[in-house]
């Protein structure tokens, strides 16, 4: 049985994962430059060692409620065809190896923009690992 590795993170009580192969690196909260007039989900530009990376607020992107505490967001920098993009998340989890057979597509009842961006879920023992479609998430 084949297994896949996921880099996991939290958004509120939701547990998310993206394939490790898509993740370039994970960095702490960074100061960034806001981009006026840009879509609301763009939180700013980060200088990542000389490379300018656009940061996307994943909560806003998935139309989740705004964060209540003022803990600084973490950056999951993913590789895309057009260069690196950072997804801002609440907290970083472990790298998980999960068997393919516990995967299931999203139920039809899921609505809103989350439906397009959540690829499906791995049924773990005590919770669900939601798999993010990064390509769709960064395509504003």
């Amino acid at each position: 049985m084949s297994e896949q590795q996921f880099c996991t993170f939290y958004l509120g009580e939701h547990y998310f994962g993206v394939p490790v192969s898509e993740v370039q690196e994970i960095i702490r909260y960074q100061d960034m430059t806001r981009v006026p007039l840009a879509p609301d989900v763009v939180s700013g530009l980060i200088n990542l060692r000389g490379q300018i990376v656009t940061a996307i607020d994943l909560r806003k992107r998935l139309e989740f409620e705004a964060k209540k505490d003022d803990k600084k967001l973490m950056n999951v920098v993913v590789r895309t065809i057009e260069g690196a993009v950072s997804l801002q998340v609440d907290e970083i989890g472990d790298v998980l190896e999960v068997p393919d057979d516990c995967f299931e597509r999203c139920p039809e009842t899921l609505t809103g923009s989350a439906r397009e961006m959540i690829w499906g879920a791995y049924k773990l023992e005590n919770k669900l690992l939601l798999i993010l479609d990064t390509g769709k998430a960064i395509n504003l």
Partner: protein
Amino acid sequence: MDDVLKEFLVESNDNLDNLDQEFLELEKNPTDKDRIAAIFRSVHTIKGTCGFLGFAKLESVTHVGENLLSKLRDGVLLLIPEITSALLALVDATREIIKNIESTGSEGDKDYSVLIDTLARLQKGETNVGASTQSTSDAAEAEKAPASAEVAHEVVTAAQPPVELEQAEQIPVVSEPAPQAVPEIKVEPEVQKTVEVAPPTPMKPPVSVAAPVAEAPKETKAASITEASIRVDVKLLDDLMNLVGELVLTRNQILQYSNKQEDSTFITTTQRLNIITSELQESMMKTRMQPIGNVWSKFPRVVRDLAGLCKKKISVVMEGQETELDKTLLEAIKDPLTHLIRNSVDHGIETPQERIEKGKPEEGLLKLRAYHEGGQVNIEIIDNGGGINPDKVKEKAIQKGLVTPEEATKLSERQITNMIFMPGFSTAEKVSNISGRGVGMDVVKTNIEKIGGMVDIQSKFGEGTTIKIKIPLTLAIIPALLATSGGDLYAIPQVSLLELVRLEAENAAKKIEMIHGSPVYRLRGKLLPLVDLNKELNVGEEIIGSNRAVNIVVLQADDRQFGLLVDDINDTQEIVVKPLSSQIQSVPVFAGSTIMGDGRVALILDVMGVAQKAHVVSELKDKARHDLTIIHEEQSGERQSLLLFSCQDSGRMAIPLSQVSRLEKFSMSQIEKVGTQEVVQYRGDIMSLIRVSSTLSERRKNMRNPEFVKEANSNNFIQVVVYKSDKAHVGLVIDRILDIVEASNQIQRTASRNGIMGSLVIQGCVTEILDIEGLIQIGNIQDNGQKNEEGMAATGLVSEASLMQ
């Protein structure tokens, strides 16, 4: 196979570029054996490879060329212009075919039989010019060649019954092994040939392989020269460049950290890292730089061909071929330069008869010069031709409606000369297929300006023309003005920047007026629409009505001007432009982003985008109309721009802005003396200084000693208005620049003293208008910077008077 083909194309293109150059050099020194051998090798390499790849047409063309070259190499034929032209035509044909192969994969269906015939005929010594002189040796040669060719043909066919199609095609032209055969013709040619061709044939059935294999030793010889350099993908260089950029930023962080450390080993290591990083960065920049000679190398050929067409004699001199600039810029200037050179040949340099009549050497000179200066590359195209006739240009400009006759009379000679860059302008009396269609010079100008460059033309009628081009070293780094808006830093490209205006808090509310909610500012009498950057970007507090000092950045978008209000103006800086990611590319007001020295990211404003967002474009239609009326007023001679300044004890004075060439600041220590005359070194010249207040002193009781003035000036700087007279710069020393205003030029009160034209009421105060020429006469400065005798006496009086004080 694809890779082989690609390599062939790249290699052939390089070879062809060299060939043009080599041929022209060869023409100057037709007996240069090494050069002929080099050319022969290049052509041979192309021929050999294309035979191998199965490009029959290319092979047949290069083949005859090769034969002709081999005769030149052996001294059987001498290089005469006809042969050079034919060989250059061969190079062109080859280039054409290779281009076809590159774009379509096939050789194209153009027929080259005429060229082949010409080359074959020349090879037999049948030239129109040189036929008589060479007939004897050529006749013998002509007999020998077909004979040996025939034998060779027999040998080949005998050794190898199944002849390939390509081989069959070549034979009618001239037999394949002929070039090798010629050198060895004296002793047993047949035997040698069989030896050369035979070995590969038994092992490798396809005959077409034979040529490259047989030639292999020659290629290795050439390779030793090219081993010094390797081909690298530009993408790889870009990646490396980015990595170096990252390294530089990391280095900066470490340097900052090491300042707080006391461990000496760590500090010295950091220092070493610092030095190595800087050197690495510098070397990395160099990899993208290419010598301008790469582009220039094509020009002697262009000039030769054109000169032939126009029946002119022109020699090309190049200086500073090694001057380097960024690869992308090099590509961008190629076409404009070609155009300018064609122009110089076609319009600039006269025919030999004309030149002799004018007492010039029969051969015209076209000089290309390149050099680095102040972080820019300067390119000059200098010809000693007829120059530009300013009267003709003026006439033409009026005739084409580019300027009105009244305007034309006010223009300086240089302004007139530069009018040839206006769209739709061409002075050539007849339109040739080279130039004269009136498109071009304006395109040259726009293309050069597009890459942030400048072009200027200077011409002396009858003596020649110099075209100067200034371009930045690289495109990726641009100068920008940094401004703050809503607490963030934004970069504004300096290309669009016109000027900066600051209104103090108490003035701001008064000076900024509203037209139905849209703020405007009267800039020298014209209404300048204002755009509040904070409001447009939706950041921070709106600037208008905030009771703060207002900073206006006057920008040019297209042919319109507008004032951008920002919170603060910070600095100008060279910035590295980085593209925006796709998520924010849709925001029209930004052109890119950049990283500041402290690691922060700053956005680069797209001036045009801002103008469109703020609807400056539609508002400006009115402004254009407004401009028209202003021009109208100017034409009727009612208004002019004046530079207002003050001088000690002399009150407010003004100079027409049109007479001011620059405003400069000099430190006291820069002032030198020539006799009693104060001078400064200015742009490689000596500029005389006139202290306006002490020169205009007759009417005052208290004469001012210049020395005293010097002391009185506490900040150790003098403000100088630079005035350009016919021959030299003259600097007027003043106290303070007050403003630039638009005012009626109707003198309200005539002059009461020399050096003054009269007085006017400007901004509610009486202001004297300076008569600069008159002032220069009082100051007794002649254009050559010397004083005349009368002047000496006068100054003597003044200094005596000042001593008496």
